[in-house]
């Protein structure tokens, strides 16, 4: 059998790229699940004195450079958005995002169980970094290409703060179910933020080869959701609209919400990575706006699950359904690019 044919056939049959957040979910699990290492003390980093000095020096230099870049970026642009192509602010924007992301990851602490005494401190440490990130994004003149994902990133940063505060409140109240729900939400937000950040800075693997592919995948999933038929990605339309989300069912609903949100994120990243041809720019912008509405509705649903507020959960799910229907209409309007 011709070897080249085998290579081609295997790639045709099996080719796929990791879904957004897959690696980050693994990394998050590894960061938060202790393992017993043979013959080594757990969770202890060893540095030589010289290594520490060098690392401290390099880190300080990097921080100074990055802060200067972010400062210049934040003061060069006005609030609002700038045209996408050849925008000189894109690099500054990306640098600012990388810097804020690193500040967030540097503050990560441990809060895994309701017995964990470090939760309050962990939340107190990470919230200022999230607030600063949100503030930096708000005051930046966002490059046009990133406006939609930027808006959603801000909403997810806000939700992460809400999740963290809710977890601490539940811990103080001794409400374990509430605590777990809030921590799951916070963990999920982290898993949403990571791929989004990498997609914006341009280091995330491509999830579609072209606009045609990115759009086709999105359209099929939306149509499947609206028509209750099998599709390539489950947007949980049926599961979310037919399920009561009170009490113990809240965690199940939360997982459906997160599953759906991961798919919406996939579409947004795929469309970000593969800009629409100029003839479809307006229609594509509408599609992305409606996908963003769906994402926002899922965030509202998550927030309502945490409080808990059944009426707001229902309202969030209905908003999600409306946004998906609108996005499906947008996809039909785009047709076959």
């Amino acid at each position, binding site marked *: *059998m*011709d070897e080249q*044919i*085998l*290579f081609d*056939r*295997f*790639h*045709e*049959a*099996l080719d*796929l*790229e*990791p*879904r957004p957040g*897959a*690696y980050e*979910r*693994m*990394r998050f*699990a*590894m*960061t*938060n*699940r*202790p*393992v*017993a*290492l*043979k*013959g*080594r*003390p*757990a*969770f*202890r*980093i*060893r540095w030589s004195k010289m290594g520490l000095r060098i690392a401290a020096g390099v*880190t300080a230099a*990097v921080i100074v450079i*990055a802060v200067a870049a972010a400062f210049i970026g934040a003061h060069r642009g006005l609030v609002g958005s700038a045209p996408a192509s050849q925008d000189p602010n894109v690099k500054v924007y990306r640098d600012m995002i*990388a*810097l804020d992301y*690193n500040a967030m990851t*540097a503050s*990560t602490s441990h809060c895994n169980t309701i017995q964990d005494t470090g939760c309050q401190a962990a939340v107190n440490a990470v919230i200022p970094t999230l607030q600063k990130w949100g503030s930096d994004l708000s005051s930046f003149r966002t490059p046009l290409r990133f406006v939609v994902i930027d808006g959603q990133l801000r909403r997810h940063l806000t939700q992460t703060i809400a999740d963290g505060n809710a977890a601490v409140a539940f811990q103080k109240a001794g409400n374990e179910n509430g605590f777990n729900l809030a921590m799951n939400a916070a963990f999920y937000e982290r898993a949403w933020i990571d791929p989004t950040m990498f997609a914006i800075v341009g280091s995330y*693997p491509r999830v579609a080869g072209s606009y045609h592919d990115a759009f086709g995948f999105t359209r099929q999933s939306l149509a499947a959701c609206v028509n209750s038929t099998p599709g390539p990605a489950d947007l949980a339309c049926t599961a979310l609209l037919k399920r009561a989300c009170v009490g113990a069912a809240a965690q199940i609903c939360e997982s459906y919400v997160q599953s759906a949100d991961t798919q919406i994120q996939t579409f947004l990243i795929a469309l970000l990575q593969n800009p629409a041809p100029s003839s479809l720019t307006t229609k594509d912008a509408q599609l992305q706006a409606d996908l963003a509405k769906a994402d926002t509705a899922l965030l509202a649903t998550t927030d309502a699950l945490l409080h808990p507020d059944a009426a707001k959960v229902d309202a969030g799910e209905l908003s999600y359904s409306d946004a998906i229907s609108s996005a499906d209409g947008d996809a039909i309007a785009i047709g076959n690019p």
Partner: protein
Amino acid sequence: MLFRQTESDLVQSARAGDGAAFADLLRPEYRTALRLACGLLQDVDEAEDAVQEAAFTAWKRIGNLREGSSLRPWFLGIVANQCRSVKRSRWWSVTKAEPPDSEAPANDLLASIDLRRALRRIGHDERLVLVLRYYLDLPFEEIATTLGISPKAARTRVERAVHRLKPIMQVQGAAV
């Protein structure tokens, strides 16, 4: 990333118990590992879970990774073993889902090239060498390191596995 550590720093930190450091070490291998798991399991969710479990296993055994040896084949070997465990645990459902050969019309097999289906019908070890070779595009030397065998033995295993595909997979225009 602004604060990226060197590989040796990451290994050192991972050996000291830093999970994030080990995950960072695995980042360049994640895509390949996931593709291997998908090729073996043909289910993205199970593949993600298998890679994550393999990562934990690898982390626990990081003391076994020799100084100067490459991380990738070592980790891929662990992923392959994890996938074998997953396949065993779901064996009943797989055999139930797969119709016996006699139920599939012969002309159906001849007419359509269904490599995924063909792969499900051969053993784990055969599927593994085929995925390593033709999907991950690994040279025989790296396949050999992953499997802990010689490059010559790796080549022989690949050839045998291709031979096993013959009755199942029909490649248009190719000498089968």
